[in-house]
């Protein structure tokens, strides 16, 4: 990557790694939460909904500070992780956690509305055929929610890739560990003579965003085609 300096290339690969891991790890719990929201009534549902949406509503710095308070070396969970030699504070895994927390509500919102749009009569029909709840979910509900899933993944990936405030507050900026592309960009802007590097990273961010959006659009078109023709 001769277009980018080694530091900039490192920031890009780190950001891609953090965003992929963040989205991959948040997907299963997001699917579970979205399904609960779409299909079940239970006490405290509104409260859970609010908690899930919090990272969208709060200033990212507040979310980052909350993560630091919980997962930092002095935090309740952080101390346990330290004892188990699984510390995530000031490591790339911490950056992935911050990105995942910020992307989570976007996935849940997209998946929930996708699940809600699946005709429940089809799920009933599957049950009369003897299908278990798992089989109904993976055979009927999830495939019929594919468009919502792809849209949610694209949004979540973009959010995780661009995460700045929560990340820098929680895990600071350590080259190769937590200095993601947006943080590297910010630091270049703060450094005299860093404008050309900042411009290069801006181009890279733009290209990643375009590729992600185009990829999602193509996938959506394919799912629509298979729904209509096949």
């Amino acid at each position: 990557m001769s277009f980018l300096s080694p530091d900039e290339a490192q920031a890009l690969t780190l950001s891609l790694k953090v965003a992929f891991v963040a989205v991959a790890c948040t997907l299963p719990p997001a699917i579970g939460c979205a399904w609960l929201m779409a299909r079940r009534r239970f006490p405290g549902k509104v409260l859970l909904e609010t908690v899930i949406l919090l990272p969208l509503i709060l200033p990212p710095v507040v979310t980052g500070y909350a993560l630091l308070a919980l997962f930092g070396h002095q935090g309740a969970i952080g101390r346990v992780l330290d004892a188990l030699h699984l510390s995530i504070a000031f490591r790339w895994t911490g950056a992935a956690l911050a990105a995942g927390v910020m992307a989570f509500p976007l996935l849940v919102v997209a998946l929930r509305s996708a699940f809600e749009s699946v005709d429940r009569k089809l799920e009933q029909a599957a049950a009369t055929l003897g299908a278990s709840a798992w089989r109904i979910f993976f055979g009927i509900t999830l495939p019929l929610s594919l468009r919502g899933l792809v849209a949610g993944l694209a949004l979540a990936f973009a959010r995780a890739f661009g995460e700045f405030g929560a990340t820098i507050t929680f895990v600071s900026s350590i080259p190769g560990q937590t200095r993601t592309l947006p943080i590297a960009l910010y630091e270049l802007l703060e450094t005299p003579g860093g404008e050309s590097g900042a411009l290069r990273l801006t181009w890279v961010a733009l290209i990643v965003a375009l590729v992600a959006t185009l990829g999602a659009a193509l996938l959506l078109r394919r799912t629509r085609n298979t729904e209509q023709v096949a």
Partner: protein
Amino acid sequence: MIELDFSLARGEFALQLALHSEARALALFGDSGCGKTSTLYAIAGLLRPTRGRIVLDDRVLFDSQADVDVPVARRALGVVFQDVRLFPHLSVRDNLRYGASRSPDASRFDAAVQLLGLAALLKRKPDQLSGGQARRVAIGRALLSEPAALLLDEPLSNLHREARAEVLEHLRELKRELALTTILVSHQADEVRALADAVALLDDGHLRGVLPIAEFAQEPCVSNARADVAAR
């Protein structure tokens, strides 16, 4: 053997039934809104009665006193819904296979495909089927789930004349070949005469009587339905 003795409430509507029939194929007959489909859904486990008992061929499916309520997926009832409900993202073959997952036996699959004349349709998606074809696939899917009984909700509704004749012929054949306990919801007298051995007459959530099929044609309350048939 069909034993239905239960009450059910849906908003303003109240259904109260107490019937016992030894018929192999029982039709629930009445005008729309009389509680036919609610009865069928209660048998399938899709609606929960407020109290009572539902027994099919010595299998207790629901008994409020004994606290029995067999989950839908374990009732082993092949339901053919009025609105068909084929899975839109699956081909005809995969829709049938979804029903057959309990017993993925190729010879059974082939027999059902043959019986219902589905061989040429296997690769199609549900939106590429005519109304009659979709109905036949739905019947095949229900049969392949190896049901202990078949529940048919207006299986000939919304079909044009030829499609109706075609599906009716297949259902007649099923009745001859399989001898499955069948409960049929219908408001069409000719359909009932062709497919049922006995008829439960429903009116506004109440049972007016159970007739053997031979007596059914003479019952005055079917005159409307007969006029409807004559008008076709």
